[in-house]
């Protein structure tokens, strides 16, 4: 299969592929690197958000 790289479209079969994974408190990260020889020609990154941590708290006031 042909994929887009810094060298234009290349056959994925001609490239060395490395898959990485990291878990962080708020997300999982997966990346895929493609190398032609020693040269990095493509890097994808996928961030899978677990808990984005953006919460607004609604408060109804009370009469003292």
């Amino acid at each position: 299969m042909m994929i887009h790289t810094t060298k234009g479209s290349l056959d994925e079969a001609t490239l060395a592929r490395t898959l990485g994974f990291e878990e962080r408190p708020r997300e999982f990260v997966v990346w895929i690197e493609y190398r032609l020889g020693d040269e990095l020609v493509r890097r994808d990154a996928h961030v899978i958000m677990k808990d984005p941590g953006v919460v607004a708290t609604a408060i109804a006031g009370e009469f003292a």
Partner: protein
Amino acid sequence: MSNVSGMCSSFKSEILKGIHALGTSVVRAGTGADTIKAALYLASASRGAGDTVYNSTGEVAGSGYTAGGVAVTNATAPSTSGTTGIWTPSASIVYTSVTLAAFDAVLLYNSTQGDKAISVHNFGSQTVTAGTFTLTMPVHDASNALLRIA
């Protein structure tokens, strides 16, 4: 039985839907949802809760990326889960065929309403080379939704 003070849970999602206007509001072109966009920022930028509108300062730049970012897929209306108002984009946010370095945040903003800021979300610093960057959304519930009014 007794009366209890509290923000009505329904109100929390209705705020997100634009149902209530407790101050001067805006003239809307229709009843459809606004266009929400997602812009990426360098790890060296200073985006945060103090932002009021989209700002290109510190925005990532590189091959295949257009300033202002991409439109967010928004096919799921805000709702209430338990007592929490929630909203999450209905699909991953995807930047294709981009070369971008050292970015670690996305700003969601309302492109329809003068680029007014909605939220900033951090993640670990990322680099993409001639590839695809994907932000996959969290579970759409009271504990994990992208936006929550609890």
